[in-house]
């Protein structure tokens, strides 16, 4: 499993170039941080990796990629449904029966430190808990690519710490993990850093 970006540049119509000549490749098992100031195009780059956005220039090659999971900056779930139901859903979607899916979902919730909350409705979770829950749901899908967008941006220090701990523990999984972030703790959890500042270059140079 691999994603290769070659000379990827992007600008939204009528707006200046966000980044130019981005070239890198990511293999499964790697966990990459994308850093850069707000508005530099981190989320846009994630959507290009996901294939939801076509870059204005350059080539994106995906090999062996079957599924993608996003974890958004603002966790969104079904307010009335339980934490467990959220994590079971991707497992049920894979064809598992209810009890198998629930067993597996509990195992994942335990890794993310959420087992005690498994029966709480989504609406009762704190921001950090909800963020971790959506992360565990994304992991439960066993995606080829896991894209995590600013997982700690809206969290206080303590919640951010729990999320970063979980992210660090992800480094072993057999997926490509890309995390867009401002947070240097999050960055430290990653094996490689791509700084968008390096790709914001003058047209002349």
């Amino acid at each position, binding site marked *: 499993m691999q994603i290769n970006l070659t000379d990827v540049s992007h600008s939204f119509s009528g707006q200046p170039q966000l980044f130019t000549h981005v070239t890198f490749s990511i293999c499964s098992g790697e966990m990459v941080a994308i850093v850069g100031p707000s508005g530099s195009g981190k989320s846009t780059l994630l*959507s290009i990796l996901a294939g939801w956005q076509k870059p204005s220039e350059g080539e994106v090659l995906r090999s062996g990629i079957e599924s993608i999971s996003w974890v958004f900056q603002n966790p969104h779930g*079904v307010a*009335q*449904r339980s934490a467990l139901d959220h994590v079971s*859903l991707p497992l049920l*979607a894979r064809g598992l029966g*209810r009890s198998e899916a629930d067993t597996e979902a509990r195992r994942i919730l335990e890794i993310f430190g959420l087992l005690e909350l498994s029966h709480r409705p989504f609406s009762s979770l704190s921001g950090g808990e909800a963020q971790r829950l959506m992360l565990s749901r994304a992991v439960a899908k066993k995606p080829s690519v896991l894209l995590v*967008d600013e997982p700690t941006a809206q969290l206080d220090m303590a919640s951010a710490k729990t999320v970063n701990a979980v992210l660090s523990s992800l480094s072993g999984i057999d997926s490509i993990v890309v995390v867009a972030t401002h947070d240097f703790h999050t960055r430290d959890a990653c094996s490689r850093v791509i700084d968008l500042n390096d790709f914001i270059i003058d047209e002349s140079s």
Partner: protein
Amino acid sequence: MRKTVIAQEAFRNISTGASRTVYLFFVISFILFSGAGWSSRTVVDLSMDAEKFRQAGGSVTIVSAPAKIDGEQCDALSKTSGISSSGAIRQIESITFSALPDRALNQYAITPGFASLLSSTSLETSVSGIWISRDLSSDTGWLAGSKVSLSDGRTSDVAGVYDFPSDGRDQSLAYAVASPYSYSDLFDECWIDSWPISPQSEQLSYLSVLASPDGIFEMEVPTIRQLNSTLGVKFDGSEKFDKVPFVAVQIFLIAISFSSATIWIWTRRLEFSSALHAGVRRADIILQLIIEFSVLMVPAGLVSAIILYFFSHYSNPDPWISSFCVGLKFIFISALAFLLSIIFTPLFLREDNLFRYFKER
């Protein structure tokens, strides 16, 4: 997803309220009930108007040809299809009761057919005696079976009381006595209650009631009039029915049902985009929505059908089943439009709605 799992998801959404259960139930019930209620009451109202027209004698045509009407022919007209009753009448000498000595009342000789036209129930041939008007009955207290004495000393039995309200009709019979007579003499008028066909349509055939012993050429042209024209010359039920905008209302209901289902799904679009993103197939989402809808549709439909049943009965002069079926059709149409939207709207759900949504906030 497994079918049992899809059903479980649907039931969990319903029971936790994630389906917008209250909204959905309220909207379905409201739409089903208003469509069914409106249509069935419209049908009942038409029946009531028709009944009112008929009660007021609007459907009765009077062929008038003094001393030229064959009573037997006139009664026989009621066997013609479209004519519910008919009978002949002739004014005879007035009658004075000892209870009302100062008042000579109009008295009419009538055929048996006329008595059934008056009472709208068939005349029991065994009962003999005079028929008195409702007004006379309430002034004197006489009812069917009463024995009354005349001022000349004879007595008479009251065979029945007929209604002849002052609702705009010819008032000659309003305070009078009608006595069933044999067919032997000729009559002045033949009254024909033609229902449900309009009284104007069959007038030519009415002329068969004329007796023509001396040949038709000598006869005066008979006059034809309506017993009560205050509610219009005719009541054309099917024309009135055709004028009701059933189709327009149905289209409106389809649009309302379809768009409420669309709104229902669209307000949950993040949930479904997210489910798609979690790997749930679109067809499974549609099946889950159909189950969620059906779970609420069945009770809402039953409640509507029960209310519709009472609506179809309440002061409906006609059999309830016809207006009930019209209402039922509206329930089915709404439910179908709802289902169509449930199948159609999820086709527009996209995983990357999620991305757009999160970027926009």
